[in-house]
């Protein structure tokens, strides 16, 4: 493997033209592409265009933004919503947890009016959710209204780990008691996430 191209913030990387586009970790000013991070330059070819990206050395600093899939842990539930803490964005672990709120109407895509929070989530559950447009300053609004989103890991009232048995139910591996949840359809990536 050739030695990686190291760059630093403010370093001019190349001319910005139709075939070279500024990507993540870079910005454009006065016809040039500059780096914003200390890291390694990565050139991603995509439909005849070279996207210039910079990957941060070490952990990059990021906050959740609209459209991201995040991993969160449920903190409290009420009739209308549940509050949770966002811990990861995609597969990146956040340095700090951020507050999220999941409203009743964003739990499911269908039959929204029949959703009941306590039948979908319980405190302590780990969920996958998507970040909705940001309206409030401190809290991210989340949604699980997709098949792949919802509870991925949960523990039963007796403390046993539960496995999904249907869209809406999980079963305790110790007591075999079934509990209601809004279960995420597990795609391979998130399998690793919790079964390890």
């Amino acid at each position, binding site marked *: 493997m050739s030695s990686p191209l190291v760059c630093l913030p403010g370093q001019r990387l190349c001319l910005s033209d139709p075939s070279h586009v500024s990507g993540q970790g870079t910005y454009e000013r006065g016809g040039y592409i500059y780096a914003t991070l200390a890291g390694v330059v990565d050139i991603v070819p995509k439909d005849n265009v070279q996207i210039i990206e910079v990957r941060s050395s070490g952990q990059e600093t990021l906050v959740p933004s609209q459209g991201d899939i995040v991993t969160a842990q449920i903190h409290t539930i009420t009739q209308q919503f549940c509050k949770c803490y966002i811990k990861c964005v995609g597969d990146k*672990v956040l340095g700090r947890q951020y507050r999220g709120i999941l409203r009743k109407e964003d739990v499911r895509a269908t039959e929204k009016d029949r959703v009941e929070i306590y039948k979908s989530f319980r405190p302590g559950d780990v969920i996958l959710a998507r970040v909705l447009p940001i309206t409030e300053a401190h809290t991210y609004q989340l949604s699980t209204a997709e098949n792949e989103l919802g509870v991925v890991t949960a523990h039963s009232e007796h403390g046993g780990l539960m496995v999904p048995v249907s869209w809406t139910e999980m079963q305790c591996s110790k007591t075999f008691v079934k509990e209601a949840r809004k279960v995420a359809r597990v795609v391979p990536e998130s399998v690793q996430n919790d079964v390890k």
Partner: protein
Amino acid sequence: MSEQYKILHPVKYFRDHLAHKIRPDGREFGEYRPIVVNLGSISTADGSAIAKVGRTTVVCGIKAELCQPKAEAANEGFLIPNVELPPLCSSKFRPGPPTEQAQVATQLVADILKNSDCLDLKTLCIFPDKLAWCLYADLICLDLDGALIDACVVALMAALKSVTLPAVQYDPALDNKQVNVQERKALSVTNTPIATTFAMFDDKILIDPTVDEEDLSTSLVTIVVKEEELCFVHKPGGCVFTEEQLLKCVEESTKRATVIEEIIETAFKSL
């Protein structure tokens, strides 16, 4: 993946590690982190030291000022230790007045100083009832990764030993004081207390815990040893220890104390 696992299920992550007889940072249960002591790097202080216990870093600077002794202890000076946990050292803290943890640490360090009797406050008196030294020992944590008290005590003792005070001529009749900054004398520190912290998790006792281990542990014990004696056995609650476990900890800390004392000695020799 392990990072996500750690953040989502910290307890299980920790337990899995301990089940394999290894701690998350690769140490064995009874293994402590390396200790580094650096002396006198801050010349604006009258005595200073930096102590590192693993990644936990504490810098201690001692500044001497002149003051009047207390009426009830006319022939004693002052030694005022304060532990500062600035927001710089960990994401747990916010700017503002000292947190509860900092206050508790301050009091523990003050207690340890008093219990060990390592510095006779009478030696800080210049003229009874009139003039005495006040030593402000400020301990600033620069990196908080567990075993704060251990690091504080090492930094404080090393700094105390490096303090030199200028000669003072005092004329009580005229209340006139003259200081000769060039002529300096070291303090007489009679012994070196050394603190060792243990954390308990599921009946397993871990020496010198990191901050993650401290947060997850169910109980903490700090034992301070000076020479052949104990001068502090502090367990502020938490889950129970049996007598055997506690005495085992005492034994371990005595062993570790001799090692640390040597490290401080060596630091002085190389100065």
